């Protein structure tokens, strides 16, 4: 991998380089309070770009898998059906995507492109997407209460799947330098700009020391039991009472799936467009909702809420699916923890599984 050094003042110029190359650049911006949002960079907000700030609650997956996306446009003219696919092929870059979300996009790549059928809509978004990852090194701003990427091995600094990675070599946002690492040829191509200077061995050493230090700044959680949970789920060893308890706590709002950077489910619906016939849309769907598996005529094979919760966690934790996608559908971002009113975000579930299966084995 090629590494360069860029000064703190020059770092936002990477956004300019990308905009010059025709990319719409998306970056997280601070709102009121601690909330942050991904927004397109404009001449107006360009000056407010920050390297360190809390990861937005709403994941960047919508730039490859929008919450609502048109698949087809259908017109009826003189008795003929004209069915036309419509694609979004806009060049986009995400500046400041966190390592967990890079892993999330990689999971979506595996799911939508790496199986029996490839999804052309996803492919068109993804092929035109450029990722500038910022490693989480600021304990105050980057690392949140609920972060557990240490347990899913997806952070605090991604090792792959980004085009460019920025790693702050300063301490808590001070100090003048960031290390830029190219993950792809497209990323490396940016190094022709004069803002990138040669890196020295001392820079690499500093990166290693900081990374080691940052790892200690994560909140102590019990989620290191991931491997135990994966084993228990894969072997079918979870007691029914555990699923019941998870089901009882779930309010069936679907929030966890909508904020998840690795959830993939969608529904498809047709909508009339005035004067233009019909458009077919796909819309995010959620396995937490009771109608998710209901068939025409009313039969629903998955009835109880604990069946549906079982579904979500089985899908994310079973070894079978990890093998099928060569990646796990949980990337440790902690958003489900933040959004869940019933405290059945992923770390709690992993802990419940560990505790209850362990107890059962002791008996």
């Amino acid at each position: 991998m090629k590494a360069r050094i860029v000064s703190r003042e020059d770092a936002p110029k990477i956004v300019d380089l990308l905009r010059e190359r025709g990319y719409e650049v998306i970056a997280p911006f601070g709102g009121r309070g601690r909330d942050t949002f991904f927004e397109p960079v404009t001449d107006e907000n360009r000056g407010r770009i920050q390297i360190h700030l809390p990861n937005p609650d709403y994941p960047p997956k919508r730039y490859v898998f929008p919450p609502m996306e048109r698949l087809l446009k259908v017109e009826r003219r003189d008795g003929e059906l004209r069915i036309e696919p419509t694609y979004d092929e806009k060049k986009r870059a995400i500046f400041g995507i966190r390592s967990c979300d890079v892993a999330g996009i990689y999971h979506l790549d595996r799911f939508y492109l790496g199986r029996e059928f490839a999804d052309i809509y996803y492919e068109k978004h993804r092929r035109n997407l450029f990722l500038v990852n910022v490693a989480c090194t600021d304990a105050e701003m980057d690392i949140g209460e609920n972060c557990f990427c240490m347990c899913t091995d997806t952070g605090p600094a991604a090792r792959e799947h980004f085009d460019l990675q920025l790693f702050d070599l300063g301490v808590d946002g001070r100090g003048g330098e960031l290390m830029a690492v190219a993950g792809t040829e497209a990323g490396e191509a940016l190094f022709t700009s004069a803002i990138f200077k040669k890196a020295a061995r001392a820079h690499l050493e500093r990166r290693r020391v900081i990374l080691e230090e940052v790892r200690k700044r994560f909140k102590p959680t019990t989620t290191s039991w991931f491997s135990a949970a994966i084993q228990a789920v894969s072997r079918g060893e979870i007691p029914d009472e555990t699923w019941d308890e998870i089901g009882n706590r779930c309010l069936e709002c679907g929030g966890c799936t909508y904020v998840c950077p690795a959830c993939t489910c969608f529904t498809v619906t047709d909508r009339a467009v005035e004067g233009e016939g019909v458009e077919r849309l796909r819309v995010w769907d959620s396995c937490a909702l009771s109608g998710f598996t209901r068939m025409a005529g009313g039969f629903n094979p998955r009835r109880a809420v604990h069946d549906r919760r079982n579904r979500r966690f089985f899908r994310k934790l079973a070894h079978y699916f990890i093998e099928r996608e060569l990646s796990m559908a949980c990337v440790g971002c902690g958003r489900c923890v933040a959004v869940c009113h019933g405290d059945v975000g992923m770390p709690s579930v992993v802990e419940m599984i560990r505790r209850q299966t362990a107890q059962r084995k002791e008996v």
Partner: protein
Amino acid sequence: MNPALAERETAGAAGVMENVYLPKAAVLDRVVDEIHEVKTFYWHFEDAAEQAAFRRFRPGQFAQVSLFGVGEFPTSLPPSPTEEETFFTVRQVGSCTAALHGLKAGDKFAVRGPYGNGFPMEEYRGKNLVFVAGGIGLIPLRSAIVYAMAKRGEYGRIQIFHGAKTPSELMYVPNLREWERTPGVECHLTVDRASRDRAGGEEWTGNVGVVGSLFKKPGVTVPVENTIAFVCGPPIMFRFVIKDLLGMGFEERNIVSTLERYMKCGVGKCGHCCIGVAYVCVDGPVFTYEQIKNLGEDI
């Protein structure tokens, strides 16, 4: 570039990536009434090449039918690839199927597919085939029955057991009559109630009772050794027939069925049909009873 994209990159070099969600325009040729609220829709693709490609489907596969403005639904393919015409047999249960029922000859809609694994008919060569269908469960089995009869020499004994609530709810009656007359094929029918509601008021002189009662009828011997049992029908019928077959000595892996689930894509993406580790659309819809039992959901 990550591996998943790179793989597709090489695939893309050979040709353009296919849009798996794009249905192709089809024309409805004619509609035939089957039973109450169930009709058969004969259709063909507008594009002849599309039609030729589609007709290479396997028995047990399914298609996605688009009624634009209403939606899209998955449906079995009852014709055998050995037959000329393509058609669907559909019960009116929801908004999409109602829209299909509202079409008349000449109307246009759209179809994509075929999807799913289908019955491994080549693997079954040399075996006896026992088909057990309850009500409209005969729709997905029709394809395999007609296919096996067209390739009669490749299979052992062929037995068909079909049960319906009343005589007027027996499916594909012209086919049943033909199968009853075909030498080397045993076709046994039964009804739950012998009501005289058939058009023309014909008296029912056949068996009365559940499908399983046919297995014990005098003169009927169900082969168990070297036999595949195809079972399709309502959940209650399914459970009892499975019990009967297991009681006769069938192995779980020699009983096959085809599952139905809510599906939005048919290509393993939308997530609705996933049961346990299986996506019904790409890993099924055909599963052995051994697999179904381990999926952990109601059938």
